[in-house]
């Protein structure tokens, strides 16, 4: 009579949650340790185990941990903000960036008012750091969400503190 095959005592968090045997070739095992079941639970709730498995199989092995980290972050933010998820965070950061750009522009104008024309080159250099990312500039132009979901300033810092930095800043 066949008995129920016992699960390995070293099942990864995914196989434990899915109640299945964790094989040596389990795609989840290197990235979802059995000591941290909460992370997989969140990722599974938002994306689903089979979708995560497909996503991981589509990226090179050396990039899978980064992929898992970003999926975990995205799932965490989505569970905290089921309507806007990471888009809410992006909109908030955009707003903060615009405020800082405004402050820099005001400071620049004040400097111009106090200094001679010889510092014009330095002021251009001040602004150049804001433009040194063409990807960011292109994104800020294209994302339609910034006008729709700007959080109120009083809640912005608390919101940003709550979501925390991504794992690879």
């Amino acid at each position: 009579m066949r008995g129920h095959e016992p699960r390995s005592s070293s099942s990864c968090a995914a196989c434990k949650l899915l109640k299945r045997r964790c094989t040596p070739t389990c795609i989840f095992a290197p990235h979802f340790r059995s000591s941290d079941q909460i992370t997989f639970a969140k990722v599974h709730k938002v994306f689903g185990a089979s979708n995560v498995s497909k996503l991981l199989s589509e990226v090179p092995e050396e990039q899978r941990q980064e992929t898992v980290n970003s999926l975990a972050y995205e799932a965490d933010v989505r569970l905290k903000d089921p309507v806007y998820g990471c888009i809410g965070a992006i909109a908030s950061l955009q707003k903060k960036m615009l405020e800082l750009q405004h402050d820099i522009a005001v400071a620049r104008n004040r400097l111009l008012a106090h200094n001679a024309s010889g510092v014009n080159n330095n002021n251009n250099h001040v602004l150049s750091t804001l433009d040194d990312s063409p990807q960011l500039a292109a994104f800020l132009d294209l994302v339609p969400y910034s006008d729709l979901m700007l959080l109120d300033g009083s809640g912005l810092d608390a919101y940003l503190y709550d979501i925390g930095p991504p794992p690879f800043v």
Partner: protein
Amino acid sequence: MNPKRCAACRYLRRRCPKDCVFSPYFPPNNPDKFACVHRIYGAGNVSKMLQQLPVQTRAEAVESLCFEATCRVEDPVYGCVGIISLLQNQIQKTQNLLPRTQAEISVAQIKPSQNQHSAFM
């Protein structure tokens, strides 16, 4: 086949009921939208997520899910989290810059007649 099935039910090859949770947000004229969301989240998860939200917030939720799914398809490793990381880095750089600029202003106010050799970086 009902020609008025929503994009989700057409993709899933099923009948589109009158109370279909997807139909207000996935019109049949935009099949790619549902295909993208389904690829990343799965129809079942999207359905569960929408059912747990008040009706008036579901449209926004669908748009944000679509955007995130699109980001993930374009960048399978980082998805939209890459954008967050980029923004936070830029904000940090800019925040570091502001006090220096304000210090330059203070110096300029104290010594307005002298030439200023400012070094921002």
